[in-house]
């Protein structure tokens, strides 16, 4: 019944001699919010970027709703890698929100959100704009539709980036440290939007350093270190009652021990 939306199996990634991912496997159920936490360099961002093939994994399988991502054919471990052109329709199914937003500065907020609807889906301009405004509504920024991104605060820019991902009508949204580049007072508005999406039952994977947010919003948490999954489970179990020593050490270092009574 509750079959996995996304299956990741044995993901490996190396840069030269450095192996960054050493065999990552996990599932994501439909409507689930999964958070990847772990120290810098643990491979969590790389793992996320492999899911839509912005990084090409060396080994491993990624399957989204029965569709194999990034490789031709249906035999695991076989088939050539897709080109960026072949990947485009698959990436369209997967929204991505970057740490540094990467809004396109030469386009208005509205066009940032509407561009791919027009160019990838062939939607006409007025439909694409209507959809864009609906999505901007969701991040409470409809009134900024005519602005250029540079005129917005970091938090507003990140919310526009979220609207841009929502306009893809994605099966899955990836968040790559969405609040790490923000001034502290702007973090809340972005987390607020992500929380609303989680409550809507969106399927999301969130790489974050906001441990408390992960505990409160994620259904499940994966703790990664050194390219391995160290511990995985319901968010409150992993963060409040970690089983593994390395998880405990990490949570202690990021200052969550005293708050959580670990």
């Amino acid at each position, binding site marked *: 019944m509750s079959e996995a939306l996304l299956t990741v199996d044995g993901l490996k990634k190396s840069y030269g001699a450095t192996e960054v991912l050493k065999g990552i496997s996990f599932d994501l159920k439909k409507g689930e919010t999964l958070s990847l936490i772990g120290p810098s360099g643990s491979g969590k961002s790389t793992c996320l970027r492999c899911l*839509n093939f*912005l990084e090409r994994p060396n080994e491993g399988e990624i399957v989204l709703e029965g569709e194999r991502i990034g490789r031709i054919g249906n035999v695991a471990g076989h088939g050539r890698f897709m080109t*960026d*052109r072949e*990947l*485009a*329709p698959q*990436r*369209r*199914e*997967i*929204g*991505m929100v*970057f740490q*540094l937003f*990467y*809004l*396109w*500065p*030469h386009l208005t907020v509205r066009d940032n959100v509407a*561009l*791919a609807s027009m*160019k*990838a889906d062939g939607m006409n301009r007025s439909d694409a704009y209507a959809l864009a405004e609906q999505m901007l509504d969701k991040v409470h920024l409809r009134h900024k539709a005519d602005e*250029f991104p*540079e*005129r917005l605060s970091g938090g507003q820019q990140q919310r526009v*980036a979220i609207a*841009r*991902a929502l306009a*893809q009508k994605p099966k899955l949204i990836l968040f790559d440290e969405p609040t790490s580049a923000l001034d502290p007072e702007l973090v809340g508005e972005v987390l607020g939007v992500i929380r609303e999406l989680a409550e809507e039952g969106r399927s999301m994977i969130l790489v974050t350093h906001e441990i408390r947010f992960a505990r409160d919003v994620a259904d499940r948490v994966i703790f990664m270190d050194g390219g391995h999954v160290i511990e995985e489970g319901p968010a409150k179990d992993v963060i409040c009652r970690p089983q593994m020593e390395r998880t405990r050490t990490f949570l202690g270092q990021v200052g969550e021990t005293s708050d959580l009574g670990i």
Partner: protein
Amino acid sequence: MDNGFLSVLATLLTGAETALKVSLGAAVIAMTGGLPLALSVVFTRIALVRVVIAVYVEWMRNVPALAHLFVLYFGLAAVGIRLTPLTAAIVGLGMVGAAILCDVFVGGLRALHVGQREAALAVGLTPLQSLRFVVLPQMLRLTLPSIGNYASQLIKDTSIASAIAAPEIMFYARNLVTSTFQTPLIYATAILLYASIVLPVSWLFALAERRLEARR
């Protein structure tokens, strides 16, 4: 025979037409050549392609344009390929321009954060769409001042085409001088003519830059 200012101007204007033809033709070759070269440098995974382009660019940029024109006009003629002075000037300056703009565009592409392209791919655009709607508009905006510099330099450089007898402004000016000896009047008129072509072009680019600046 009246050799007053207006008469001199009328003669030199014929040359201005050639100068404009050479400028436009060379600019078209420079743009349509420079952009693919720059994209190849930035996006190719084949090292040999980068090396070949680097050699071309260095060769074109480090030899005087006049020498390239001589090779195309006199050198090719010696092996039986006869180009008109106009064609040789357009092709020669165009090939140099492609090398100059290649460097300019490579700089512009490298100045763009890779994340801009990644974000375009991530929303499901193809590489070509990402280039067209996300990368190139930003790259052109970044490089507009350099393209403007190149354009005004190009117009001034058409004067060297007189050395291969392309009938442009300096060619007529020198002919007039040898037949009338009104040296100051003729060269002053030539200078005015160049300035009246180059200045508006520079202004246009400056205006375009300010327009784009204002939109942000």
